[in-house]
């Protein structure tokens, strides 16, 4: 039977409605389908404005029937040349650009930039500033993971959790707004410390948030972790082995979900992270299910770190006293000529680090972020290279989706959790 003869017959409604003829028809179709049907590889365009791509990412997916045989991501829609812009701004102005790369965990990028320049300048950061940085860094991780949980489960069809996650994310953003005036893209850190001290009652507000947060994490877990539909759609989907993860250069939760316990808070501690007690959750499974639950566990660990940091928050300075790095306090400008000169030089020109190249890795919600900074002795960096974890992690998509169904591609993309600002820079 040729395709032409078959088509009108299958359209007849009575042949479909008759239950007895249905299995026979399906059976004959599958038995001869190779000879009857014309099959070809179909290219499917996803994005760039598709909500499940979490930004502007375009995927060209080659499909053989229901199965993905090749994924080709096209990125660059958000490329704004941050690295080139860094070369024409002073080091202190760079704090404005760093958080705009990964806008969901912006404190991570901000911290990586500031720590790099501080290594170059040999700056001496006061203890209070370091502790506040740890609190904000972890709050940023909580906020980022909450967006991940909400949006990723929404991609799987579980819409309710999104609103619960964003309820707490709003609370975290209120804390950000309270401390630095911005809900996103804060730019609160400075080379040598913080831009200003935290408000008096802020620590109390963070404490209140942390006291109830573990209960909220249990609440999230109760909403999806035992759901059979979620388990069916996530378990065994998009498996990345430890060997492949290392080959693909994955870092962060994606690498730890594959069984490699690399966390720079433990491996190369910055901001006194070695003095905090916390666990690094890892899983040996490497599938989407593991990536979901691992980030859920990280929420608890981050809250644990914040509670410890709040206990050691003592009054004190929040800026490096070195006047060649930090601006002098405002009252001093009225009495000291030296202070006026320092203020003028720092504002108009900025400081001049010695020649050199530095790199400080920081563990953000997405993986290792580091700024490779090259100084030529001027007040602006000679070259800045951002090690963007989302960009490298995205390579796992081409690896983990092949052979799966199209719906699994959405799951894998969601659990790899790229931020397109971080991919494109």
């Amino acid at each position, binding site marked *: 039977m040729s395709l032409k003869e078959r088509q009108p017959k299958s359209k007849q409604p009575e042949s479909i409605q008759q239950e007895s003829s249905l299995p026979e028809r399906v059976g004959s179709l599958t038995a001869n389908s190779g000879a009857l049907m014309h099959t070809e590889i179909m290219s499917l365009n996803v994005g760039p404005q598709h909500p499940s791509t979490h930004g502007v990412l375009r995927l060209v997916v080659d499909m053989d029937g229901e199965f993905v045989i090749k994924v080709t991501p096209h990125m660059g829609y958000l*490329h704004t040349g941050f690295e080139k812009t860094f070369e024409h701004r002073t080091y202190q102005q760079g704090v404005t650009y760093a958080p705009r790369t990964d806008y969901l965990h912006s404190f991570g990028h901000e911290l990586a930039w500031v720590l790099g320049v501080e290594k170059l300048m040999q700056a001496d950061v006061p203890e209070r500033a370091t502790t506040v940085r740890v609190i904000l860094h972890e709050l940023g991780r909580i906020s980022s993971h909450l967006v991940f949980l909400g949006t990723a489960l929404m991609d799987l069809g579980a819409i309710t959790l999104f609103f619960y996650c964003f309820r707490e994310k709003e609370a975290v953003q209120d804390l950000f707004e309270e401390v630095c005036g911005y809900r996103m893209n804060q730019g609160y850190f400075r080379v040598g410390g913080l831009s200003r001290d935290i408000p008096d009652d802020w620590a109390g507000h963070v404490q209140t948030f942390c006291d109830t947060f573990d209960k909220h994490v249990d609440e999230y877990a109760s909403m999806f972790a*035992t759901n059979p539909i979620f*388990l069916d759609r996530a378990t065994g989907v998009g498996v990345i082995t430890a060997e*492949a993860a290392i080959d*693909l250069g994955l870092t962060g939760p994606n690498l730890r979900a594959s069984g490699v316990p690399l966390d720079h808070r433990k491996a190369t501690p910055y901001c006194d992270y070695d003095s905090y007690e916390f666990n690094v*959750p*890892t899983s040996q499974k490497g599938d989407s299910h593991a990536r979901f639950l691992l980030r859920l566990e990280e929420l608890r660990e981050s809250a644990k770190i914040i509670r410890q940091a709040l206990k050691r928050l003592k009054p004190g300075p929040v800026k490096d006293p070195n006047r060649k790095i930090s601006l002098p306090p405002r009252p001093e400008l009225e009495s000291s000529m030296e202070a006026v000169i320092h203020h003028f030089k720092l504002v108009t020109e900025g400081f001049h680090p010695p020649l050199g*190249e530095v790199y400080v*890795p920081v563990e953000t919600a997405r993986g290792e972020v580091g700024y490779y900074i090259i100084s030529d002795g001027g007040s602006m960096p*000679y070259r800045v290279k951002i090690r963007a974890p989302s960009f490298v992690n995205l390579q796992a998509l081409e690896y983990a989706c092949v052979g799966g169904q199209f719906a699994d591609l959405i799951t894998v993309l969601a659990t790899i959790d790229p931020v397109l600002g971080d991919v494109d820079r």
Partner: protein
Amino acid sequence: MDKVSKIETYTTGPASVQTDPARLDPIDALIATLGLSAEDAAEPTAVVGIDKLESVALRLRQAGFMLLDVVGIDYSAYVQPRPERLSVLYNVYHPYDHRRLFLRVWLAMGTALPSLYGVWKSANYLEREVYDLLGVVFTDHPDLRKILTPDDLEGHPLLKDFPIDETPTLFRDGRFLDPAAFRAGMTGQATGLSGWRGSLRRGEGKGDIEPPVMPAGGPK
């Protein structure tokens, strides 16, 4: 249902090994074993010749290192003389014993580098980025296309001689946008290329256009 129906318990990662000073030493020993010369720099950096790059990378891969980043640098405007104009740095890291090494290759403009895609799959996007932004060609790369900048952008933005001041933008269909004229049009000082706001304000050609007024009795 035989699938996992409750949250699995996660193991805790091993404690930090960074505090053990003996673990930090081997990076110098490693550089010597690989037959490379260490650079006097803040980060452990070793210079590799282009011909030895692949074999050194392979030995690092076999030792368990992963490729985290590829950095392309144009040293043409640097204050100190450098061996060549371009340099490509490979940021390799050992995920278990936490050693980090930067492999540096010096190369002149127009020199091609061997692709490390055969050694580390992560080199795929990273080398495409260096190719896109600095124009370094990687031979035997499976898919060497631009990755971040638009297809119709000419030049490599991270080279030091790439013009960064206002330049007229030429689109693929031949449309031409002059920034100065475009801005003038937006402010209403000249018709410019916007053809919208500027022309309405000036009412050029057709006499002055009356601004719309609210009809009596409010909006309907």
